[in-house]
């Protein structure tokens, strides 16, 4: 899985890169402090599976950046990452096309759980979540609450099968 990240805080960016790199089958192919650099890298590189976008990106608007990424690269998932992570932010992130909103500080087990649901075919089930699909808000909330066990994630996905967009 190829991942790019953008966050205006260099310390946070460093920690996020470390957390993604520690996940199985994840390759961080770019980490940027501004949206323009991210868009340039996306245009010049091979397809990227996931982009992590900070909502408060200095003077830039993370939601707008998310919309641009999603409109140009519909097969690329966007996960937004923010210190402000209330329900309103979550709704705005989903409206902007993000697949999920991760609240800072990001726990490694939360990141793993979400990546398992979204990207690991052996755990998510055959054809359950295809690239470019977006889970509904309810499903994402359920996913964020679901325990870490692989078995329960599988069971959860099974129960939600009819609602997958």
């Amino acid at each position, binding site marked *: 899985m190829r991942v790019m990240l953008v966050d205006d*805080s*260099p*310390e*946070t960016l*460093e*920690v996020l890169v*470390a*957390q993604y790199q*520690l996940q*199985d089958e994840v390759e961080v192919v770019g980490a940027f402090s501004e949206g323009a650099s991210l868009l340039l890298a996306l245009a010049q590189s091979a397809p990227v599976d996931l982009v992590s976008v900070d909502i408060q990106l200095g003077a830039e608007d993370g939601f707008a950046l998310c919309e641009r990424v999603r409109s140009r690269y519909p097969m690329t998932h966007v996960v937004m990452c923010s*210190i*402000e*992570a*209330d329900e309103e932010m979550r709704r705005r992130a989903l409206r902007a096309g993000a697949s999920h909103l991760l*609240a*800072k*500080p*990001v*726990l*490694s087990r939360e990141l793993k759980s979400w990546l398992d649901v979204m990207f690991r075919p*052996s*755990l998510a*089930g055959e054809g359950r979540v295809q690239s470019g699909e977006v889970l509904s808000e309810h499903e994402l909330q359920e996913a964020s609450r679901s*325990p*870490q*066990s*692989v*078995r*329960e994630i*599988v*069971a959860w996905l*099974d129960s939600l099968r009819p609602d997958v967009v």
Partner: protein
Amino acid sequence: MRWRQARVRTEPSLKVQTTGDQTTPAAGESAIDRDGTEGWQTDQIEDGALIAIADQLIILKVAADAASYPTLTMPDHDHVRVLVNGVRVRGEVILRGDDLILVETDTLPPQAEVEVTVSDDRLEVRACVVRRHGSTWRLADAPWAEQIVVRVVDVQIPPPWVSVSRIQAAVTASGCCGAWDEEALSRLASGEDAPLVVLRGTPPTMGVSAHCELLALPAEYDPLHRRMRMNLVTTGTIIAKVVPAVAGQPGSDVFGNPLPPPPPSPSPLPGQGVRVIGDRVVATCDGRVVATLQEIDVVGELAIPGDLTVQDGAVEFPGDVVVLGDVQDGVMIQAGGTITVRGSVYGARLSAERGIFVAGNAVHSQLYAGQLHRLCLALEPVLGSLAESFADFRASYVTVVETALHRDGGSRKIPMIASVLLDQRYPELTQALRSLIADEYQPLSMFDSHFRQMTDEIRARWIDLQRTSLTLSDIDGLRIRLTQCRRQAQIYLKACVAEVCVSSLTSSVVHASGNVRVVGVGVFASSVEAGDDIVVEGFARGGFMSAEQSIRAGEAGTPLGVETSFRVTGAEGTIDLAIRHPNTLMAIAHRRDRNLVTQRHVHFTGSE
């Protein structure tokens, strides 16, 4: 409520007829004579005079040609009522000579009740004597006057005393029996109003399970951990003696019901690297004696005299690893015990089940302490759920096999039945079995033989083509392995959590099932996750810190607003920061707070 009535009829001779109770005037009231004849010069009394005496209102000398009539002003009082000719009066009333005045006063009697409560464990009975003063309301005496404003006096009546026998009767009436506390009874009877334990049942006594008692072994001072540590022992050393179990004694509660003795508290049992011979525990390998609440182990120790570099290769050791120098870039250490580094750690990955202690700094490194504990936290529910699915799968298998045996040629298909069932009806079971052999559980395979045997069996018999010839004995065999692994995972979960202690952290990732302590300069741009608490003596600048119970840090963030996040997942947790610079997030449960100005001595909890 007792009523007292005084009925008064006026007489020119001042003779008064009364009905109802006559009460003695309270102290401080007027000493006016009850019949009103003595001590008064009636000649001096003006026309239309009125007197209040002994809860009576008496009218005197209202002649037909009187120049004025007496007046009475009666307040609206709940407990004293004045009736003139049968009609209750309030406010100012003009009285005539033939008016019949009736005074009604209330009395609230005093009370003393015994309240009895039984403790939750039904081993104690508390009694409390609730006393309440009574009250009686009286008319204040007033001398002869043309106008009287009635004043009501509230006279307190002290509560009665309660005897020891009455307290005992109240307790016995609630069905309780046991040993009386005579001192408490006499204190209650003498007026103490606090609840006191007056009766006790017989508590059961806890037994002692069979356990190991460590012998006194030579110890040496460990400067890094700042404590004494037992010396290395050699194979054959007697390290502990076995103490047999002692049964507990049953008791009885205050209702006379028997109470079974509680289960004995967990005691250390022989663990790894030891063997019980007779009533002695003997070391079966050279190493350190490690005693926890659960086990007494002898853990081998690997000491590396200088720096550890990538040229030394990955270190995997079931016991403790001690590096007297630095751990250099690219090194990986996996230890079943603890990892102690006397120097610093640079760009390395350290994983230890009992704790990681670094005297120096950790830079661009990953430190994992108690990974088995973390893995078992995720694994145990998986195994529990898998056991249920597996029982269902086995039942289906038996049914289908029995059906096949009654069909022509069905017996030839029996070897395929398990595989088809897994594909068609239990795909999630296959996925769950696959998940058990995923890379994330490999540390378990390394240190736990039950898990290793189970995953080997899954690989050999239950994945892909190998499963085409599964039999009932294979199914039962794996079922037993799953149960064993689940039991072992539960043991790991009960084991002590592992902590990380380091001087400082820079651009590193730290996970600990217990505490994380950073005792030096601080934490910089790092991700720290702790199962219990995080304590940072110095700075915490940039990055994420998450703990289950609490976080304490000296100075969080920077004056320039470097983004720094703290999170406590337990709702009852706390975050304490001596200095909190701008742009520092604190989150506990669902409560989140980010500041814009510097704050000092911040104490943050999950509630508003």
